[in-house]
């Protein structure tokens, strides 16, 4: 017995490794480029989902035509009303709920199916992978909004159908990311080691590959979220997404389009919210990416 002594223990502080590590990770997120956009997103989220009940706002579409275009700061209508007399604050917050639900739903749809397809395409490289990849290429090469327009039009405008239409082409983006990352991980020797321990393909995908690609997939999810939000807004604007009277940021802009000169705020307010949300998601994605670059790679 000559070698039973562990080497290099002095280099690594040994006590309480776990908690220390978590603390360290938390600190890596504690910087303005992460916190500011995250706080804005959180605020918008809270305002949209808790605001209407908290402030006892009227329902967004029960306005009275006698309240036509009340200005900002009117009693009972903090942000005024639109041309149908609907409360704008309520429209914006409830519209935000719908926009967020649709874009998160569409993103989640893409994330689940796209990642699954991408991982399978990367793991079973040969025939299955080639076929799946061609399919993803077809969806990807195609301008997304056109397909979404087609799907939405043929399904008919509704919240659920909008999620399907946008989610469908999100599949391709997630599929590509997941496939590229899977190809990277599959080359690793620990996959060979796992296989030679008799572990099945799906088990390897779930226990080895998914944990190693999850970070990149979630980083992309923020970007996909901002795309989905734009797509929702564009579809609803074209009248193919969320149908009126259900408000969404996109259809508020679309339905008030012709009052642009008369009441520009009807368009500017949802536009600002849309912009703040998308920009925060983009900034957060950048900030997290930076963090990854500095601590992991």
């Amino acid at each position: 017995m000559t070698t039973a002594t562990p080497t290099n223990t002095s280099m690594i502080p040994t006590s309480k490794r776990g908690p220390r590590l978590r603390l360290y990770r938390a600190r890596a997120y504690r910087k303005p480029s992460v916190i500011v956009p995250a706080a804005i997103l959180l605020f918008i989220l809270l305002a949209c989902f808790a605001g209407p009940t908290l402030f006892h706002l009227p329902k967004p579409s029960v306005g009275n035509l006698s309240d036509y275009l009340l200005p900002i700061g009117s009693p009972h209508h903090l942000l005024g009303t639109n041309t149908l007399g609907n409360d704008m604050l309520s429209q914006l917050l409830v519209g935000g709920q719908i926009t967020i639900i649709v874009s998160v739903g569409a993103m989640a749809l893409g994330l689940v199916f796209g990642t699954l397809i991408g991982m399978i395409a990367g793991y079973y490289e040969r025939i299955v992978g080639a076929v799946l990849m061609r399919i993803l290429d077809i969806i990807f090469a195609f301008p997304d909004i056109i397909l979404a327009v087609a799907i939405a039009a043929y399904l008919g405008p509704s919240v659920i159908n909008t999620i399907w239409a946008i989610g469908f082409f999100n599949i391709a983006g997630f599929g590509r990311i997941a496939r590229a990352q899977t190809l990277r991980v599959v080359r690793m020797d620990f996959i060979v080691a796992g296989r030679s321990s008799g572990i099945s393909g799906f088990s390897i995908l779930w226990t080895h590959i998914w944990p190693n690609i999850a970070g990149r997939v979630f980083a992309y999810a923020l970007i996909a979220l901002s795309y989905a939000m734009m797509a929702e807004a564009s579809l609803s604007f074209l009248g193919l997404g969320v149908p009126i009277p259900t408000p969404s940021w996109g259809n508020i802009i679309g339905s008030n389009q012709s009052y642009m000169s008369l009441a520009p705020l009807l368009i500017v307010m949802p536009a600002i919210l849309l912009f703040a949300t998308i920009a925060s998601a983009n900034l957060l994605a950048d900030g997290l990416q930076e963090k990854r670059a500095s601590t992991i790679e």
Partner: protein
Amino acid sequence: MAARNIGSVNSPHQSSGEPLLVVTNLVQEFSVPKRGSLRNATVSAVADVSFVVDRGETLAIVGETGSGKTSLARTLLGAPPPKKGGITIDGHDVTKRNRATRKAQSRLVQMIFQDPSSALDPTWSVQRIVSEPLQKLGLSRQERDDRVADTLRRVGLNPERHSRRRPSELSGGQQQRVAIARALVGRPALTVLDEPVTALDAATQSQVVELLAELKNEFGLTYLLIAHDLAVVQQLADRVATMYLGKICEEASVATLFSTPAHPYTAALLSAIPSFTPDERPRLRLLGEPPSPIDPPTGCRFRTRCAFAQEVCATVEPRLREVAPGQNVACHFPLGADGTPSTTVPAPESLGTVA
């Protein structure tokens, strides 16, 4: 003389004479995209290789970079499966990928990889990594945990201290110890070691080599050792095979091969290390780069870099044949004791004219 192996930790030959790994006419090829062509080119990584490793024995495979050592090792694990040829481990034909062999696989063969950072899943804890090969063995959780702790202790790690860590929280030497524990925890019949110490620093290298030798003696393991470093080979191996462009050139016991290499390639490999070359033999140098495995030379693959090549070497591929007891060589003009070809006419056995 190659006298250093007397002092090695290698125990006397433990081979039982019972074949554990039988490789017959193994072929592995990869297709790579060819520039400016619609068709792919074929890389011949392992070309018609046959050998046997007995239970309890260590066979080392040495060769220049790119000679196909890793490809051979990975093919034995079925990653990817061979293009042609047979692999039998402990009586199981592992080229057949059915459920029974899959279940038995973790007991049949495990591998220790060249690069520890790629061999360990960075998202897994040491405990989980080492217990992976036990998953399909039908052990209880308690049995599994005990086996893992035992094995960790045996490779010089402290289960309490190390088993919750991720690989990135370990040093290179510790990582390789985890990889060794992972490979040996299920007591595989055959362990493939692909340059197990190349990635480590010198001091850690000798510790790990000693550990591998101890574990082998203790558990009666069978190693297929792939190495660049001939000193490591001397410490661990019973027999050595040299490999060049996917072919086995020579195969003999460690003592024989180091003292009287019969293949010019083997002699050249040994010449590269001053202490190995007996003074009375001429030094051979490997000239230039090895040819591309996409389009290997005809006849003997080594002839383009061989000092003794003749016309026949370009046309007839030499067969592996016994030139001395226990020494097999694939060369038309094998070297004699003085380090120069002993004949001027190719032997009929190497030409393949004798059945």
